[in-house]
């Protein structure tokens, strides 16, 4: 069996629900988010987990907690798994950022790999720090199931580096709803995507509606 990386996005917070940028500490899940975390645990607690890695941000930890409770497993926090820092945009909506930091916003939309939110992080910085965590996991676990709980931008950037997609395209190519799970196996020829953005562990009413997943027809 190869090393199997399960990449889990945090469950819903008030910031995700209202579509505002968030990479800060001490954010809790909404009640729906809590349910999402419970459903994730219910589907995946029986898997033979070798290790659990988590972003130190509270909304990632709260997403992982139900799984830890039902398995009795402990997790390790890594700063490299934090969300991309949004700097001055923290807590703002895209429309507000467009008004208050117009030029920075345009540059960031055009290439978020090499441009950062005002006083925040470039996509490339996140690619580098998250790659350190992936390297650590690869060195420590030659095989087995390893869970990585992180965030929307960070996980998409990690997937871009694993797949060989330009990091500057992470926002445009990959959708990643809350509590979605992607599975990448490290095979003989490199990273092999088994599943991407799977939400089948959630009941329909907790999935983000989009025109194709049956949640809103």
């Amino acid at each position: 069996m190869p090393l199997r990386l399960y990449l889990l996005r945090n469950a819903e917070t008030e910031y995700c629900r209202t579509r505002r940028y968030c990479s800060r500490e001490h954010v809790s899940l909404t009640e729906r988010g809590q349910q999402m975390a419970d459903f994730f645990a219910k589907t995946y607690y029986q898997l033979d987990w070798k290790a659990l890695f988590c972003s130190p941000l509270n909304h990632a930890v709260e997403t992982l907690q139900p799984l830890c409770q039902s398995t009795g497993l402990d997790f390790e926090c890594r700063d490299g798994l934090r969300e991309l820092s949004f700097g001055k945009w923290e807590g703002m909506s895209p429309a507000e950022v467009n008004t208050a930091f117009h030029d920075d916003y345009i540059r960031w939309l055009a290439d978020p790999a090499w441009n950062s939110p005002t006083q925040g992080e470039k996509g490339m910085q996140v690619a580098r720090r998250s790659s350190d965590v992936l390297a650590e996991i690869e060195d420590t676990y030659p095989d087995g199931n390893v869970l990585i709980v992180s965030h929307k931008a960070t996980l998409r950037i990690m997937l871009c580096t694993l797949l060989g997609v330009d990091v500057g395209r992470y926002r445009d190519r990959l959708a990643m709803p809350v509590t979605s799970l992607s599975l990448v196996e490290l095979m003989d020829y490199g990273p092999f995507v088994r599943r991407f953005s799977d939400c089948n562990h959630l009941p329909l009413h907790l999935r983000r509606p989009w025109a194709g997943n049956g949640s809103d027809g």
Partner: protein
Amino acid sequence: MAVFLYFLRHGQTAYSLTGGYCGMPENDPGLTSEGVEMAEQFAETYAMLPWTAAYVSPLRRAVETAKPLCQRVGMEMQLRDGLREVMYGRWEGMHPTAVDREHHDEYVAWLTDPAWYAPVGGERAVDIARRSAQVLDEIEHTHNTGHILVVSHKATIRIMLCTLLGIDVGRYRDRMDMPVAAVSVVELAKRGPLFHTIADRSHLSDTLRSLPST
């Protein structure tokens, strides 16, 4: 609303069970009874979508996979040669271990870069990328909105997904899985192709999902 593309790999065939190469029109197996069941379960789950069109490879296994949904929702299949499987030339019908034994050097060259190196007498991935891109182009020009079914094959679908994601076409075999009857959903959004899911099989029963697939 944008255009949503649903890339569906055909259901189980005798070849998909054993992993033999199969792409020529002369080597055109139909679905097994489990393969037909997969197609029916796909139709069952996805019939509720407001379908706009279905573009289907003319090979039997693809047509048979598209049939249950098309019949159910009254949609005509648009057959397109561009969606055919890679033609494997002299490797047609052979298992990878036999190819490795009998065409060793060519096999290694193909494994190294299937984009620019063809199976002996067969097609390169760049050739597939070009002919399938013409179908994608036709879809983009014909439809501004809607849900479009694209039924094709393991290599051809992965090559299309690589071109849409911006992955080197030569990496299509190594970067993603595509078991039989798997669905991948790509939205043609304002800023280009946005991937919603890759190789989802939640429409299949546990029994069908647990069958071996290459």
